[in-house]
C-alpha cells in the first residue's frame, strides 16, 4: 500500500523527524524536571523534619520526657503541624498525633527515614491518603521519637507541572503535524509545476517552461535556472538542426555540379570524344572545391554550435596582425598594392588565436583580391574608447553598396562583380561567426571614398570585447 502523496513529501518527512527529535528532547526535559523538582521537595521536607527533631531533642535533653511530652502536645495544635509520636522504652505510645510508627519499634540506634502515607479527612468527609516523610530516632533515655511531615501539597504541585508539560507536548506535536502538512502541500504545489515542465521536456516539448511566480525565493531560482538551461538546450538543438540543414543545402549544389560534370565527361569519352585525363583533372578540381566549401561550412557550424570559441587565451592583437601582415605583404607587393600596417602596441585581447588568425586572413585576402593594382590596403589594430579591440582592414577597391552590406555576410552571397574571382562565398560568413563566437561583431563601412579612379572602398572591422 502506498502512502498518500502528501506523506511522502520531503518536508513532511522532515517534519516527522523534527517532531520525533522534539518529543525525545521534551521527554528528557520532563524527566529531568520531575526528578529535580520532586527531589527538591523531599529534601526541603527532610530539612524541616530534621530541624524539628533537633529542637525536640534539645527540649528532651533539658527537661526529660515530661518536657518533651508537654512540647509535643503544644506543637500538635500549631499552625502547620508536624506528625508526632513518642513511644516509651517498651514501644507503647506516650503521646502523638498518629497511632503507630510507620517504621515500627526498632532497636537499632541512629536515624531512620521513611516515606509513607497519612490518611486525612477531606472537607467532604471522605478519606484521602497523602504522601508524607518521616524520621524516627531512639532518645538517650530509651524512648522512641517519630517526626513526620505531610508533603502532599508540594508533590501535587510537581505533578501539576508535569501534567501541564505533557499537555503542552501533545499540543506541540499536533500543531507540528498540521504545520508539516501545510508546508508539504505548499512545497508539493511548487514542485509539481517544475515536475510538469521536466515531464513535458522529456516528452519532447522543448518549448515548455517552468512558471516563475515572482516571489524571488529558491523555487523561483530553481525555475529560472531550469528555464535558462532549457533556453540553452533549445538554442543549441536549433543550432544543430540549422547547421545540418545548412550543410545539406550548401553541399548539394556543388556535389550536383560535380556529378553532372563527371556524367557528361563519361558520355563524351564513351562516344570517343573528349579527353578522359582532362575530365578527371576537372573532376578532381570540383571535388577539391566541394571539400573547401565543406570545411568552411563545418567551421562556421562548429563555431555557431559551440556558442563561444574554444581554448581562448590572452595575447597581443598587434602581434597577430603583424604576423598576418608579414604573410600577405608579398602578395600586395606582387599585385602592386600599397600595403600599410598601423598597430597600437601592447594591447590585450582574449581569443582563440588560430581561429582569429583564420578570420583575419579571410578579411585581408578579400581586401587584396578586390583591390585593383595601384590601390592600397591598410591593416589597423586599435583600442576603441569603449575598451573594445578593433582589427580593421581598409581597401580602396569597389567596395560594397550600403544595401548589400548585410547580405554579403550571409552564406554564399557573392556580389555580381565578384563572380570572376575565386572563392566559396563563405569568407565573410566565417568572419562573422568568429566574431560572434568571441562575443564581438563584424562591421562593414565605406572605405576612404572615391578618388583618382579608386574607391569608394570597404572597411571591414572585427570588433572584440574589452578584456576585464
Amino acid at each position, binding site marked *: 500500500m502506498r502512502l498518500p502523496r502528501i506523506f511522502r513529501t520531503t518536508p513532511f518527512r522532515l517534519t516527522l523527524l523534527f517532531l520525533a527529535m522534539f518529543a525525545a528532547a521534551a521527554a528528557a526535559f520532563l524527566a529531568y524536571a520531575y526528578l529535580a523538582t520532586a527531589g527538591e521537595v523531599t529534601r526541603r521536607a527532610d530539612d524541616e523534619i530534621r530541624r524539628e527533631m533537633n529542637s525536640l531533642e534539645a527540649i528532651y535533653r533539658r527537661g526529660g520526657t515530661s518536657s518533651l511530652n508537654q512540647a509535643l502536645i503544644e506543637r500538635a495544635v500549631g499552625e502547620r503541624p508536624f506528625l508526632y509520636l513518642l513511644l516509651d522504652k517498651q514501644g507503647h505510645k506516650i503521646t502523638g498525633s498518629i497511632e503507630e510508627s510507620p517504621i515500627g519499634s526498632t532497636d537499632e540506634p541512629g536515624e531512620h527515614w521513611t516515606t509513607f502515607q497519612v490518611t486525612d479527612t477531606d472537607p467532604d468527609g471522605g478519606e484521602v491518603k497523602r504522601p508524607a516523610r518521616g524520621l524516627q530516632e531512639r532518645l538517650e533515655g530509651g524512648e522512641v521519637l517519630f517526626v513526620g511531615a505531610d508533603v502532599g501539597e508540594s508533590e501535587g504541585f510537581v505533578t501539576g507541572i508535569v501534567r501541564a508539560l505533557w499537555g503542552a507536548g501533545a499540543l506541540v506535536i499536533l500543531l507540528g503535524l498540521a504545520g508539516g502538512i501545510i508546508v508539504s502541500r505548499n512545497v508539493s504545489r511548487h514542485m509539481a509545476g517544475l515536475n510538469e515542465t521536466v515531464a513535458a521536456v522529456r516528452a519532447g516539448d522543448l518549448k515548455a517552461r517552468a512558471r516563475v511566480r515572482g516571489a524571488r525565493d529558491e523555487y523561483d531560482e530553481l525555475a529560472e535556472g531550469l528555464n535558462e538551461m532549457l533556453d540553452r538546450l533549445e538554442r543549441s538543438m536549433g543550432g544543430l538542426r540549422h547547421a545540418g540543414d545548412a550543410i545539406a543545402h550548401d553541399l548539394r549544389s556543388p556535389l550536383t555540379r560535380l556529378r553532372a560534370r563527371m556524367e557528361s565527361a563519361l558520355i563524351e569519352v564513351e562516344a570517343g570524344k573528349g579527353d578522359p585525363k582532362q575530365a578527371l583533372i576537372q573532376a578532381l578540381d570540383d571535388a*577539391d572545391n566541394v*571539400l*573547401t566549401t565543406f*570545411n568552411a561550412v563545418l567551421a562556421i557550424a*562548429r563555431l555557431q554550435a559551440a556558442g563561444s570559441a*574554444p*581554448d581562448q587565451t590572452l595575447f597581443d592583437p598587434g602581434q597577430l596582425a603583424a*604576423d598576418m601582415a*608579414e*604573410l*600577405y605583404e*608579398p*602578395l600586395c*607587393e*606582387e599585385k602592386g598594392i600599397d600595403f600599410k600596417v598601423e598597430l597600437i602596441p601592447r594591447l590585450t585581447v582574449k581569443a*582563440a588565436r*588560430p*581561429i582569429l*588568425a*583564420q578570420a583575419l*586572413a*579571410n578579411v585581408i*585576402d578579400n581586401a*587584396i*583580391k578586390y583591390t585593383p593594382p595601384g590601390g592600397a590596403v591598410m591593416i589597423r589594430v586599435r583600442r576603441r574608447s569603449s575598451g573594445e579591440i578593433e582589427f580593421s582592414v581598409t581597401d580602396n577597391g569597389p567596395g560594397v553598396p550600403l544595401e548589400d552590406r548585410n547580405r554579403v555576410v550571409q552564406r554564399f552571397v557573392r556580389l555580381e562583380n565578384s563572380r570572376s574571382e575565386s*572563392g566559396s562565398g563563405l*569568407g565573410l560568413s566565417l568572419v562573422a561567426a568568429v566574431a560572434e563566437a568571441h562575443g564581438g561583431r563584424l562591421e562593414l563601412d565605406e572605405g576612404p571614398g572615391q578618388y583618382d579612379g579608386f574607391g569608394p572602398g570597404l572597411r571591414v572591422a572585427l570588433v572584440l570585447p574589452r578584456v576585464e
Partner: protein
Amino acid sequence: MRILIIEDDIEAAEAMSRGLGEAGYDCIHAADGAAGLAEAQKRGFDVLIVDRMMPKMNGVQVVETIRREGDATPVLFLSALGEVADRVDGLQAGADDYLVKPYAFPELIARVEALSRRRETGAVATTLKVGDLEMNLIARTVHRGTTEIDLQPREFQLLEFMMRHAGQSVTRTMLLEKVWEYHFDPQTNVIDVHISRLRSKIDKGFERQMLQTVRGAGYRLDP
C-alpha cells in the same frame, strides 16, 4: 623504405599502398589498432601511418604505446578531425606529423618522404649545405658560391626548411604549417609569392635554378 599503414578503411589503405608503392615504398597494412600495434612492435619500419579512429585500439593509444616502449619510428597521424585540439592530442601522443582527411596524394607522399628522411639528418648541424648553397645557422648567413645572400628572417626560415628537405617535394600546406605555423587555408596562394621572392634572391643571376616548382605538389630544392 618500409611503411606500416594502420587504417581500418580497407579501400583507403589499398589506395594508399598503391600510391606509396608507385613512389617506391614497400607497404604493409594492418586493419585495426591491435593488429597494427603487434606489427609495429616487430620494428623495422621507416614510417608508420596511423589512423586516429579505429576499432579495438585507437591511433592515439597505438602511438602512445610504441613511444612508451622506446620506439622512435616517425609517425604520421591521419584523421578526419581537423580541430586544433585534435591536432594537439595527436602530436602530444608522440606523432611527428598530422594530416587531415581527405588529403591530396602528393601531400601524403611529401609528408611521408619528409618523415622517412628525417632520421638521416638527425645530427645537430651548425651549417647546412645543398649544392653550392651554404647556410650558417649560428651566424644566420647564407652564401651561394661566394655571393652572400641577404634574407629577411622569414625567408631564412623558409630556406632553412627547404634545405633540410633538399631533394624532396614539400607542399604549400607543409610550408604554411612548418614555417609559419598556421593551420588554416590561406585561400589565395600566399606561399607561392613568398617562394618566388626567395627564388629571386637565391637563383637570380645563377645559371642553375635550385628552387623548382613541382607540378601538382609544391616545391623542391635541388642540389
